[in-house]
């Protein structure tokens, strides 16, 4: 009986896993969306936008359902507040990916070809940092002692994204024949992508505290 309790997945566990899947998938979809945009394939871009919107809605629904369960069934009373904050933070990361694709759709930034690789690289670093946070979160629920193994990767990818952003900004502002407004627009997008990694790092810092609290 004990074995079946140990092996059986409880509903809320499934929901949390699925919610984290949505965050992780949003990163991949965002990369696909940017690729399509940079290639000028607007049909594929529109599909990506639709998919990421669905993912965001699904993520919101799951988060609400999990939070309601946490309070209705008074689950994990000592960590309930921390888990709620963590889920909200993860949802905010998901929203960042969706927001980025929306901004591409609304503002249609004119990204010069020589910056394409750097933009892709920057988004990859930010997505990797989010991916590392997702893994940290899964570990927080399943194997709290291994959270640290994932958190240091978040920091690594955040630093990488900093490097790429700096390089990209230098390149943008160093390029002649571009209006200042254009340069500033491109810088804004670079910063938007970088912010995802920054926020992922903030989440990992808070997660570190939650881990310490649970270990006490």
């Amino acid at each position: 009986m004990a074995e079946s309790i140990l092996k059986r997945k409880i509903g809320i566990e499934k929901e949390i896993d699925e919610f984290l899947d949505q965050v992780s998938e949003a990163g991949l979809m965002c990369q696909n969306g940017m690729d399509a945009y940079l290639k000028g394939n607007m049909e594929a871009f529109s599909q990506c936008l639709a998919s990421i919107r669905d993912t965001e809605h699904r993520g919101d629904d799951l988060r609400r359902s999990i939070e309601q369960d946490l309070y209705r069934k008074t689950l994990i009373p000592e960590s309930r507040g921390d888990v709620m904050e963590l889920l909200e933070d993860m949802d905010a990361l998901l929203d960042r990916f969706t927001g980025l694709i929306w901004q591409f759709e609304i503002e249609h930034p004119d990204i010069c070809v020589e910056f394409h690789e750097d933009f892709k690289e920057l988004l990859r670093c930010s997505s990797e940092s989010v991916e590392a946070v997702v893994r940290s979160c899964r570990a927080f629920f399943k194997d709290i002692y291994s959270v640290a193994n994932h958190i240091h990767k978040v920091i690594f990818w955040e630093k990488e994204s900093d490097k790429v952003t700096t390089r990209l900004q230098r390149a943008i502002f160093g390029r002649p024949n571009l209006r200042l407004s254009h340069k500033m627009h491109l810088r804004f997008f670079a910063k938007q992508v970088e912010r995802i990694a920054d926020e992922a790092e903030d989440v990992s810092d808070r997660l570190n505290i939650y881990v310490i609290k649970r270990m006490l």
Partner: protein
Amino acid sequence: MFAFFLTSGLFLGWSLGANDAANVFGTAVGTRMISFRKAAAYCGIFVILGAVISGAGAAKTLGELGSVNAIVGAFVVALAAAVTVYWLTVLGYPVSTTQAIVGAIIGWDLFSGALIDYGSLERIVLSWVISPILAAIFSALLYKAIAYGIKCLKIHMFRLDALTRAALLFAGVAGAYSLGANNISNVVGIFVPISPFAEISFLGWFRLNAAQQLFLIGGLAIAVGTFTYGKKVMLTVGEGITEMSPVAAFVAVLANAVVLFLFASQDLQAFLLGHGLPAFPLVPVSSSQAIVGSVIGIALIKGGRGIRWRMLGEITMAWIATPIVAVIISFISLFILQNVFQQKTFIPVEYRMTAEAEQRIRSAGIRTDHLADLQEIYPNASQFQKALSQRAILDDREMGIVMSATEIDRTMVTSQSINRINRSALKDEQKRALQQLWGKTFEHRWQIETALAELSPAWRMTPGDAEKNKEIMRDLDYVYRLIRATD
């Protein structure tokens, strides 16, 4: 009148429920793993089941109050203990109800001139030290082991939560069951011999004998106590001493149960010795004190920074205050009841060196030549003991033999007392032997025991068979109470 006397027992039950439920559900409620209402409901149900099913295992059990020889005295003693526990419950401190009862009995001993059971006093003081230390050691060890197990098994946070919840509930209901079974005799045990209830049969499905009906009422009183006033002490145990995690909450309850089982279970000791295994020494362990020790043990292993020492100091003071306050309340109440309301709070027990007593003492290997002049009647135990100690130096064992041999207790076995024997209380052979004593009078209590032993082997002690001898002692006590009640 019976109903009136019963009220103090029920008040004691209510206080016990309000205070001792914290020993089993305090940490679960304190960590919010089980809501108070749910805990109180489970606790109430299992306390009642424990009281009715297992409390009646020895229908003759009288509990601590059995030593009080007048019903008004027992009423006051129970009331004094209940008031003490109630007062400390209002303040929110986990205290031992048994220690309050023993304190109240000492108040009665002092008032009636009976011998004070210094052994009980010693056990109380030892319990203040031993219970928390043993429980703290066990909880610290268990916590380390369980934390390591959780680390290795990599259990999901929510599964761990579900498992801990189930474990806390299971430990809680098991604890509540034994709380009911072990304490019901203290609550209503004294009223069993004078119970006016008749056996009730529920459509032939199950029967409740007179004792069980009393135990049911007592169990209900405990359950009501938990429901109406149990939360405060539960929160003291669960979050007042230190903040706890749910796993720690379970470890605390588990350590409490393990310590009680290993160091206070006579059954376990008999089992281990019976199988040629080394047994744990029996030490006075109180659940109320052990649970506090368990919580401290876990807090210490985690560095001890979260312990609220002030609260711990207050709890310790409450432990010390429990028996002392009970002694004072009991003594003063007895004084008022005896002198103002002219109630008989004790039956004076006289002592005299009769020829039979002298013979019995000699047969136990104690010289009686300088005790022979104690043939006048002494009005109570303490005066007789004083006279004894002026004449001879006796050790505790010898003193015990002389005191029990010389205690005057004139009784007559009447048909009324024989007729009132509970159907399941005695074996047929024992009953037949008792019937043969009909109409006989006895000067000392031990003479009934000797007479019964001569009449039937079922009343004879067997050297070395502690279990059987204990059973016979309980049966004798029951018979004696019965004769007393119908005297």
